[in-house]
């Protein structure tokens, strides 16, 4: 169920040093929808996610969430505004236990809220409860992705930014991970922006797809229609 514009980007430019990656991105995502960002390698998908998460400051343009200008806010302030960012590859603190990782995910929560939120994510990812004392570096790829997702979800984000949540996973686990994203979206009404190498799976769970090429959104597509004719879609995308 989607309603009204939740997030909008207006002519956003971003660069790493002198190398411009985003060249005037315009994008609007509705509340409660899953939007897939699709494009060839180097098109700026991860950079765009970083800009929305507040990790990279845009060189120009504006970012609005629910109408409020958040362009100049820090990554920490965006977490307080309920934006959750899942880093590419599912990063965790490898030298720390699973439980410590989860606690650190909720670092910005009030101590009184933390235990209830830990119970919530433990219910969402019961497998993690069984390995809570293990070092995160000892987990399997799938478990580590689940932990990274749990660390983001502990803050109950209204906007979830997922940068390749299924990178390095087997096809079965990719499906499982993206189904889990869909479940979260339906259960909590979380708005999701998804960057995913596995385009077919990303299109399967999303309601809209934005095609990014050379740092610009070149088109907005209906995922179902793209899935109907995959070959034509691949030609159009790349």
């Amino acid at each position: 169920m989607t309603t009204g514009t939740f997030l909008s980007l207006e002519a956003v430019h971003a660069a790493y040093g002198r190398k411009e990656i985003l060249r005037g991105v315009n994008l609007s995502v509705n509340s409660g929808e899953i939007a897939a960002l699709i494009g060839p390698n180097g098109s700026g998908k991860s950079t765009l996610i970083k800009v929305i998460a507040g990790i990279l400051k845009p060189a120009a343009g504006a970012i609005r969430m629910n109408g409020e200008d958040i362009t100049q806010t820090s990554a920490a302030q965006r977490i307080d505004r309920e934006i959750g960012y899942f880093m590419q590859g599912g990063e965790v603190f490898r030298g720390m236990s699973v439980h410590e990782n989860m606690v650190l995910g909720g670092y910005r929560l009030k101590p009184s809220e933390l235990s209830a939120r830990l119970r919530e994510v433990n219910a969402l990812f019961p497998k993690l409860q069984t390995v809570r004392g293990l070092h995160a570096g000892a987990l399997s790829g799938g478990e580590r992705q689940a932990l990274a997702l749990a660390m983001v979800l502990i803050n109950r984000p209204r906007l979830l930014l997922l940068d390749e949540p299924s990178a390095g996973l087997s096809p079965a686990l990719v499906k499982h991970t993206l189904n889990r994203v869909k479940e979260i979206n339906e259960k909590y009404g979380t708005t999701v922006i998804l960057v995913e190498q596995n385009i077919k799976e990303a299109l399967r769970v999303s309601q809209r797809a934005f095609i990014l090429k050379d740092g610009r959104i070149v088109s907005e597509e209906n995922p179902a229609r793209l899935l109907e004719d995959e070959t034509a879609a691949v030609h159009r995308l790349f």
Partner: protein
Amino acid sequence: MIWQYIVNGLCAGALFGLTALGLSLIYNVTNVFHFAHGAVYTSAAYLLFLFACKTSIGAAPATILALTLAILLGVLMDRFFYAPLPAGVRRTVPIITSFGIYIVIVNLIALGFGNDTQILHPGVEKTFEIGPVIVTRIQAIQASVFALLFLLTALLLKFSRYGRLIRAVSDNRKLAEALGLDIKKARLLAFSYGSGLAAAAACLSALETGMDPYMGLAATLSAVVAMIFGGVRVFAAAAVGGVMLGVIQSLVTWQTSARWQSAVTFAILLVVLIFRPQGLFGAKKRLEEQ
């Protein structure tokens, strides 16, 4: 005889261990190779000398004052010299900055107090006999302070909110930023606690052998070797590496002479770097982490 050298080495190593633990905290959290740690070390000893011998405030307030000011010095170094460096600057820039700070401070100390060794605690030291081993009162204090601070640091790092913050930032800084962890606080904690450990080691060393303006250089070099020897990425390993280095140096003195201590120390460093770069207690990085 060997036991006496081992005990002497353990006590000397305790000081290397404290200095190395402080250096390791700072390096792992900030990625700054804080060579000016040696200037904090030297300053702490001279501050203790100043307050204990040139005023009548008493030993305990003099020690507390020296430690506090040394901690402040470490924090100010970060605040004014390292923290303002832009992100993504070449790694050599903070190292050169650090050398600069070290040289300026040590020369100021030499200007103020002269190059001669200053004695903090003249006279014959009280000793204890434990079997075949003679331990001086200062050695006993050195070993006890090391054990206490090592345990306290381990407990704080493992169980406190701030300890978790320090470990998280040193484990994965990018993720820590993405999760909104307070990186500035972690930095402040690392510099203050790390400087405090170096200052404590300096005061304990000054009690035993006095001080000269260049004492921080040897202490920092030993701390660097201890850190690499134990394992750069493991906090406790730096401290244990320091103790082991102290024992090795003492045994070298026993078998050859004190002149060979530095040669053996750096030979160990080379061997470890070639055959076990992750250190004795460090885990090898997985390919995906490199």
